[in-house]
């Protein structure tokens, strides 16, 4: 007997929310299956899929060999063939091995075939730094992937999004990359009462404010919220915008908020140069140049392969302190609010 779905209104971890999302999807549609390295017997390298093998069997919780390119490509093929694959690439770091399949096939097939095919594939990837995993295991490439037309890039940062974005992604006929920041899995929280679904189009204001807009996503959202708390203590009201979807970007929400606050700080765990923060800055410049009271400021990861030692890694990553300092810079350069 499978367990009933746990009461989704009780407190749960982000990990549990993702697991519940997986279970619901597997229950709802027999075409859905999960495949990836160690999703089955091992229980998922972040314990997300623990128990699912027992509940759904080895056909639908499919352990793969270490063959990222082939099993991501197989996900594309399975999607073309009528299934609804959820492919787990254990972490974004290993997705580089599958990039050809992602960019040259998943992202192109719909357009290149003149709309005959589409690729309803969901790829889940753990992302991000902060756990002293060093240069090859600490990439934050979701913003970089957002460069690729044909893909949709999601970054669930809340319990609600962890719980409901997957269903929306599966309902979408396009290839979706769903980035789960490794730091979030242990985060606890409550689902919003009454929430049954989320959309994939809109950024969300996670905290309202009038003095500056903090634009963030993923784990950086929580750093931004912490910074906003801190700023509030000195009377500065930061609005915090969670991008949620990095491609397509919700440009309207970004511009609307910045028009109100007239100042923006972008927090992005990608390496500074060429990170998504540059695109967001540019959109603001293109759409709201004359509304800005000060240049946009970015808080990003330093331009280094992320080092192992904690003090070095901390120095490389965005932090609430650096965000607070950035906000002060913006306010100073525009005269305080």
């Amino acid at each position, binding site marked *: 007997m499978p367990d009933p779905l746990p009461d989704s209104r009780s407190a749960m971890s982000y990990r549990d929310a993702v697991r519940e999302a997986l279970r619901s999807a597997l229950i709802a549609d027999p075409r859905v299956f999960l495949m990836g390295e160690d999703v089955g017997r091992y229980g998922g390298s972040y314990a997300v899929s623990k128990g699912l093998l027992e509940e759904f069997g080895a056909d639908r919780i499919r352990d793969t060999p270490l063959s990222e390119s082939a099993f991501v490509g197989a996900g594309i093929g399975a999607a073309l063939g009528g*299934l609804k694959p959820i492919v787990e690439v254990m972490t974004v770091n290993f997705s580089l091995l599958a990039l050809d399949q992602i960019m040259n096939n998943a992202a192109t097939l719909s357009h290149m075939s003149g709309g005959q095919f589409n690729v309803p594939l969901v790829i889940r990837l753990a992302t991000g730094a902060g756990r002293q995993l060093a240069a090859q295991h600490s990439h934050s490439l979701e913003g970089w992937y957002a460069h690729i037309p044909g893909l949709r890039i999601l970054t669930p940062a809340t319990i609600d999004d962890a719980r409901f974005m997957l269903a929306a992604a599966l309902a979408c006929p396009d290839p979706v990359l769903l980035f789960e920041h490794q730091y979030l899995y242990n985060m606890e929280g409550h689902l919003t009462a009454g929430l049954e679904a989320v959309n994939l189009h809109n950024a969300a204001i996670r905290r309202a404010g009038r003095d500056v807009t903090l634009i963030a996503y993923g784990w950086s959202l929580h750093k931004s919220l912490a910074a906003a708390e801190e700023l509030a203590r000195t009377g500065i009201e930061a609005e915090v915008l969670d991008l949620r979807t990095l491609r397509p970007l919700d440009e309207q929400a970004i511009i609307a908020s910045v028009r109100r606050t007239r100042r923006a700080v972008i927090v992005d765990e990608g390496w500074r140069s060429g990170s998504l923060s540059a695109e967001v800055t540019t959109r603001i410049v293109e759409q709201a140049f004359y509304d800005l009271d000060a240049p946009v400021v970015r808080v990003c990861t330093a331009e280094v392969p992320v080092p192992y030692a904690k003090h070095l890694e901390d120095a490389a990553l965005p932090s609430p302190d650096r965000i607070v300092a950035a906000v002060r810079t913006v306010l100073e350069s525009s005269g305080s609010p």
Partner: protein
Amino acid sequence: MTETVELPVSREHGLELLREMLRIRCFEDRCYRLYGETKIRGFLHLYNGEEAVAVGAMRSLRPTDAVVSTYREHGHAIVRGIPMPAVMAELFGKQTGCSRGRGGSMHLFDASRRFYGGNAIVAGGLPIAVGLALAQKLLRQNDITTCFFGDGAVAEGEFHESLNLASLWKLPVLFLCENNLYAMGTALDQAQAETDITTKARAYRMAAQPVDGMDVLAVETMVSRAVDEVRTGRGPILLEMRTYRFRAHSMFDPQLYRDKAEVAQWERKGPIITLTTRLKALGLMSEDDYERCEREANAEVDAAVQFAEASPWESVADLERFVYAGPVA
């Protein structure tokens, strides 16, 4: 070595195989000219010399089976049943092309015929074939997936990963390696420490056999057996089709890497000559038959060209159409 049994053949069957091969040959020869006339652009990879593989292989497939191919896929597409006008229109970049002009020569698609392209990344189609077969298996469709690729693809990591996956999961994939001895200008023995491609299958516990890819009857027989076997669900099979490409790799290739004499020698073993010689020796066809088949093929090509010429261009306003199938809010 490949088998060399003389396979029985009737006049009707023999002429049908000939007709199909000539359809490809005439199509390809016309493409060559059209490229010179700049009607076709981009990369163009012709199939001359390899016709027996597509023709012999495709006959055993059901309409619901899936086919995955490469950038050298005109022959596969045509024999699979994509109407020649739609293929030619695609090469012209027209809206009526089988990919609405977005794909060109390297990216022919046809959903209704389960023809999944047309892939310009060497070995890029293999994982997709594995996935299609996984869907066929999990959905219990009793269909199979046939995946064409060249000898060059064998060196790619994706070949290895895909063969292992297909065999490990006992998926209904028929891997058809078109070994024409060259990957662009790189001869197989410059690319592979072990040039017998069938031996590689053993590393994945996969059955494999070489086939004389110049003999359409041999291809037909071997593929038919393999298709039946794969359809039982006992796992994938690899067939190595030993063939040769008569023309340059693409329209930009000066062919510095091989002798004219080598090409000429292979041309004498060409699949169309081989079949015609056999049918004539058996008294099953005459020179007239040949000419009629060729005339019909050329007429079909003429009609395809006319269709392509007369077809409209996709509107530039539709440039971004189809990038996403879902709404872009």
